[in-house]
């Protein structure tokens, strides 16, 4: 399996960052970067990462199934993660979540038919001070309201 030259370069650097025989340490970052490029963790990717790090595909799967940031299902181009943990819950996170579901017409871990958006209800993302918070891919959005969310999604749609 081959990846973009940028990703290949990242992999090379990663694999060299650990002492010989400890290449398995690179599994999580490799999977995360590759997921960004491929849209999900595919079976082929699991095999490839296993091969490059010298562990079994089963061991890579253990990691993939453990971390919620890694997904075997393809996600939308914009993956929206909405926090409904305590701080956000108290400040309207739940309403935000329901609003997003209605607006996009999808539920937890689902993707819009055009493949642009996916939704995920998550636990605390460490932005409690600016609750309610959400994340679009790696971008944080603070003090969210349903209106701000509408605007955000509409703008992203335009960018599409």
């Amino acid at each position, binding site marked *: 399996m081959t990846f973009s030259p940028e990703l290949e370069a990242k992999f090379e650097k990663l694999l060299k960052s650990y002492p010989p025989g400890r290449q398995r340490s690179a599994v999580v970052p490799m999977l995360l970067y590759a997921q960004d490029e491929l849209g999900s963790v595919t079976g082929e990717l699991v095999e490839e990462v296993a091969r490059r790090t010298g562990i079994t595909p089963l061991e890579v799967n253990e990691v993939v*199934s*453990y971390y919620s940031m890694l997904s075997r299902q393809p996600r939308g181009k914009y993956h929206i993660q909405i926090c409904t943990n305590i701080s956000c819950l108290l400040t309207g996170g739940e309403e935000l979540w329901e609003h997003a579901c209605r607006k996009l017409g999808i539920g937890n871990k689902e993707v819009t038919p055009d493949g642009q958006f996916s939704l995920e209800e998550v636990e605390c993302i460490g932005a409690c001070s600016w609750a309610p918070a959400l994340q679009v891919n790696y971008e944080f959005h603070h003090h969210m309201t349903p209106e701000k969310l509408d605007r955000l999604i509409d703008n992203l749609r335009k960018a599409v």
Partner: protein
Amino acid sequence: MANVKLTIDGKTVEAPANTLLIEAARRAGIEIPAFCYYEGLALQAACRMCLVEVEKAPKLMTACTLPVAEGMVVRTNTPQVAQARKSMLEFVLTNHPLDCPVCDKGGECELQDMVFRYGAGESRFLEVKQHVDEREWSPVVFYDRPRCILCFRCVRICAEGMGVAALGVVNRGASSEIAPNRGDHLECDECGMCIDICPVGALTSGTYRYRTRPWEMQHVGTICTHCADGCKTTLGIRNNRIHRGNNRDRSGVNGEFLCIKGRYAGDFAHHEERLLTPLVRSQDGFKPVSWAEAIKTVAGRFAEIRQRGGKFGVIGSNHTTNEENYYLQKLARTGLGTNNIDHHRTGDVLSLLRARVPLATTADLYHSKAVLIVGVDLAQQHSFLAYQIRANWRHHQARVYTVRRGPVREDKIAARIVSVEPGGELAGVETLRDDLAKEPELVILFGDAIQGEAVARLTEFGSSLGIPVKYVCLVDYSNSRGAVEMGVLPAEGGMTLPEMMAAGDLDALWVVGANPLRRHALAGKPFLVVQDLFLTETAQAADVVLPAASAYEKSGTVTNVCGEVQRLQKAFETPGTKTDLEIFGLIAREMGLDLKQLGPWTPSAVFAEIARTVPGYDLPVEVLEAGGAVQAGPSDGLPDAVWAPVQSAGDTLFTSGTLGRYSKMLNAVREAPGELYRA
């Protein structure tokens, strides 16, 4: 290592520094409950059943990970500890189905025992239990997620013990579960180690599941009749049927180890094609006859041929007991007056015995500082020996050297690997000279690649290293070694097996528990008598076929690949069959032979004679009777026996000669028949 003194429950206990608290307590007779801790495997600290109070520690400590220290004061019987145990059990039971009344493990379940002892009979959890359906990962291994307590013993025994690493843990928290290496199924050794080590009924076997309950069976400890490693297997018998094989009491040379054959391939004994009545050839094929008539036919012909000075050939077995082998060769020599007796030789034991070098025991493989494996795919052909060496590497950092034609599992733990072309094994060994000479001691195991002159050269090489060296000559099948030592070999002037098959002028050929027609054509038309369990190629050509009992249906002794003698225990009966020893005796009596000279045909009487006459076999019968193993003493090298080339049967983990062909389980697994030296 220096000892330390500590106090456990008010008792002063002494233990070597670095001993785990749980072990120190056990040795002092104080049980600390544990699910995930398992002697010999990596520490996991997952179950928290072993929590104890340690003075000056701010909270309860896991005894399974805590090394003992001088002056440590430990309490395992306080209300706080009892409460912790109860809470952990309550936790474990949140999703546990409590289906003990139908669970295979009911009655011998560690969780059941703990709950009986420490309570948590009532749960405070009102949530609906998570249910996941049972899954069939292979014909051998089934997984029931709700019963799993996530102790990870299975994962560790497979990775560490077997060197297979076919099991993993996926997901997180309450949805964690064990997963097989191929997504929805397993590709592995199918050994069942994971199943038997599971403390609960989460892993069950295709052989045993839902068939019977532990207390309804008789448990008979006997020796596996497949390969030559001589594992003790405890057969669970009910209604004359084997329901399972395991070795949970860790008796025998193998401890708890068994491969798929020892655990699940006893099913050949119950195959529908098992011969249950003697057959005599008539114009229109085989005719079933009574035992009396069959014996009369054989004895009549034998006596007649003997009288006119006709020519006999006798081919013995790799599976029959020492007593049977001994009696057969004696009967052939004194009763039939022939020296044409041999068996399928699978390894050059004869040359090794003649070299008069020290022979290794199976325990030596676990203790020796260094091991050299020459020309054999050990994990495939000698699963138990490979397990011993792997354990030695894990526990004692033994250095392992492999000289082989293609990749083998032992390469993964090898200090050095030497690749050779067929025939290049000795030269390959020579390249290791400097490394090996630096070792404090060595065990050398060799397969059929080393035979004849090469054995002498290998042992000379060993002696020239200047360190203590012990040897194992690898042979196939449960009693190849015994066949050699009991003299199922021609003396000078007698014919070897290939010679008998090619002779063309034999008047009678008597084949016991062997199938020479699979490899050799039979010249001429001798009166052919075959004793076997099945209508093999050889039996099909016979004039008389006598249905024999399997090793699980008889008593006697067998000698494993390391020369360790162990006792078979008759586990059940297959009506219609007779043991080979009884058949020999009946034929001898019917022939009117001198029975005083031949002696009674009971295993104990024959063994007494073996002890008197076979060098190295004067062994303590008490130890054997108690189920122990004793290595035979030095042999005299059978000075009269004729040497002949040897050839391994080439069996893999999933084949086992004739018996393997009739084991449904061995044929059902997708890995069958398996291959050697996988490239």
